[in-house]
């Protein structure tokens, strides 16, 4: 009796697997004939990696600025050269008056202007950082800055870069040894001591590109069958919703793996991004995220009525995945409601996992919250998608 039951369960499993295999084969055949999509699988990670890795840089260099030199002395010119030597700004324009300089900022000719006053020499010698201490002077005179920056403060990154010039050492200007102040704290930078942005961006980029392509592929998956009229045929067959769902996501797991290899491989060889963690850990983290993203796409696909709608919903998920996941801005800096939204996105959890594995050599199991979250998301999502999928035309 028990043998009979297990035999019939075995037979059911076998036909079920056969149906899943049928869907997988069909998807792969269709994908192989869709040259455009097939090309995108390779081109999206390749082009985006090169674009982002070169373009996104929070260490701003060579900001175009102007100068208004009221003093016109050798000292004022040396001052300009010293500022220019920091590499943060480049003097591209000279203006005669403060008014002309401000107009230049208005029309975006320059991002800031350095205004050097007539009495720059006197201000300099009395400046405490130069450290003459003499001639004696009133407190007010010594506290006067030697020059002024007018900055377009709308872009905070640029404004902060120029603000960092506020306390630049000036002692070498007068051939004096710099009076080094002892820092309050010593800071040791782990994992990215040279402070290169790519090290943080490349692993994050894996999350963004996978979110984009994985959700896009599966969000169109069910709708496309509906739009092309294949669904009416599929639902008259014994194909179960769960079999269809699993068959639909299976091929894309491999495609996701190919994309991750491209991004991390290129990132490693081209941009010298270290891959400190083991490949098994990397594969595990990526597998979990690919599954979660594919399932998210499937859920969209059961809601959307057309491929256009599914595309719109993909973008709706993609934007917060880029902006809130910690890819661009630190999670800790966001207000609490935004953090809740971020927690709901699979990309947030994956960015934590992959940065942990790639940069800090942490095992996925040690970050069990993010791991379990992705697993739970996948299973619950799969059930929801299969449940939402209707086998009738009502």
């Amino acid at each position, binding site marked *: 009796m028990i043998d009979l039951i297990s035999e019939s369960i075995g037979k059911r499993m076998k036909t079920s697997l*056969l149906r899943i295999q*049928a869907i997988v*084969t069909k998807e792969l055949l269709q994908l192989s004939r869709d040259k455009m999509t097939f090309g995108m699988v390779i081109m999206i990670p390749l082009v985006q990696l090169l674009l982002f890795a070169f373009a996104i840089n929070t260490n701003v260099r060579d900001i175009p600025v102007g100068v208004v030199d009221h003093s016109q002395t050798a000292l004022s010119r040396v001052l300009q050269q010293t500022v220019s030597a920091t590499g943060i700004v480049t003097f591209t324009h000279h203006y005669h008056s403060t008014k002309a300089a401000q107009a230049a900022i208005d029309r975006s000719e320059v991002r800031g202007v350095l205004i050097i006053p007539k009495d720059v020499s006197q201000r300099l010698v009395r400046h405490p950082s130069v450290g003459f201490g003499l001639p004696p002077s009133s407190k007010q005179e010594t506290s006067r800055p030697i020059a002024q920056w007018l900055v377009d403060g709308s872009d905070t990154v640029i404004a902060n870069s120029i603000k960092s010039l506020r306390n630049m050492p000036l002692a070498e200007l007068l051939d004096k040894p710099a009076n080094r102040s002892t820092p309050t704290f010593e800071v040791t930078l782990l994992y990215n001591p040279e402070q290169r942005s790519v090290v943080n961006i490349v692993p994050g980029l894996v999350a963004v590109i996978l979110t984009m392509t994985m959700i896009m592929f599966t969000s169109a998956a069910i709708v496309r069958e509906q739009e092309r009229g*294949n669904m*009416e045929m599929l*639902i008259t067959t*014994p194909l179960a919703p769960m079999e269809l769902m699993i068959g639909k996501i299976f091929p894309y797991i491999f495609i996701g793996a190919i994309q991750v290899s491209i991004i991390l491989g290129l990132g490693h060889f081209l941009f010298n991004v270290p891959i400190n963690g083991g490949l098994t850990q990397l594969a595990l983290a990526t597998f979990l995220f690919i599954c979660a993203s594919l399932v998210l796409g499937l859920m969209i696909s059961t809601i959307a009525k057309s491929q256009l709608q599914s595309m719109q919903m993909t973008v709706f998920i993609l934007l917060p995945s880029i902006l809130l996941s910690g890819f661009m801005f630190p999670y800790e800096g966001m207000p609490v409601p935004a953090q809740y939204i971020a927690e709901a996105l699979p990309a947030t959890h994956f960015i934590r996992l992959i940065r942990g594995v790639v940069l800090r050599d942490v095992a996925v199991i040690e970050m069990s919250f993010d791991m379990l979250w992705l697993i739970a998301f996948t299973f619950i999502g799969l059930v929801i998608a299969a449940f939402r999928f209707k086998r*009738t035309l009502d």
Partner: protein
Amino acid sequence: MTTKAMSPDYNSEFAISSAKLTRNFGDLTAVSALDLTVEKQTIYGFLGPNGSGKTTAIRLLTGLLKPTSGQVNVLGCQLPNEANKLRLQIGYMTQKFSLYDDLTVKENLQFIAKIYGLTANEQKARLSELLSIHQLTAQSKQLAGSMSGGQKQRLALAAAVIHKPKLLFLDEPTSAVDPQNRREFWEQLFDLCDQGTTILVSTHYMDEAERCHKLAILENGIKRADDTPQNLMSTMAAQVVEIAATDLRYIKESLTKLPEVISAAQLGTHLRVLVKKEVNQPIALLQKQPCLQSKNKLAIVRPSLEDVFVSCTGNEAIPT
């Protein structure tokens, strides 16, 4: 009637039986109180104009749509509850080609075969059999999307019967097919029927409807008549008079104003006039009309299925 229709031994004779089957879409009633009995191993036709509820009726009978009210029993399965059990036993050829345009003929058939759980050996044998029956062997490596209407239709039929269903639903199967292909298609249907398959086919072609063993005429979701084509024609509630004359358009216009005349249609050099059955001398009645001259020839002729269709649908419909 309702209780009897659902009793088990009643089902054994019929592949499909429904009672007061109704489906609404909002305010629109697509299928209204449809009573249907389809005997096993016959070809049953749904004849009706576009929008008459043929497709909805088929979807209700396949379990794709849930009925608003009424009862359906298909192959002993109560719908909609036992729809899943029914899936393995029926084949459905949709009105629009619903296989994959970007797969080849063989890939499409392999896909469907796997979905129905055919083992590798069964698959191979069944596929080569189907390809030769439906004359697709030469096209087996061609993409379905690049085939002609007739070839696509043969492929769709092959896919619908791959698992040897007991009951086959065909929704306007020949609408995109030339007459030659249509003839051959019907030969296939009779072969299938001979092998024990029950077939339900919807159409708006009279000649096709005439081939069915039994026929239901649908209009606005209501079954106007159902019987064998021969019975429908012989028990028609009208008599057909054929008039040979020259000024047919004018004659038609005058005659259709008569209350005894149901409709008139020109067929080349003749005018076919449907006269109500209660008129005893239809020729004499028509001959009296001023629009007709004595030299015009009038004759009572055998009704066609089109006459049946006209007499029981449209504004001219005779309440039965």
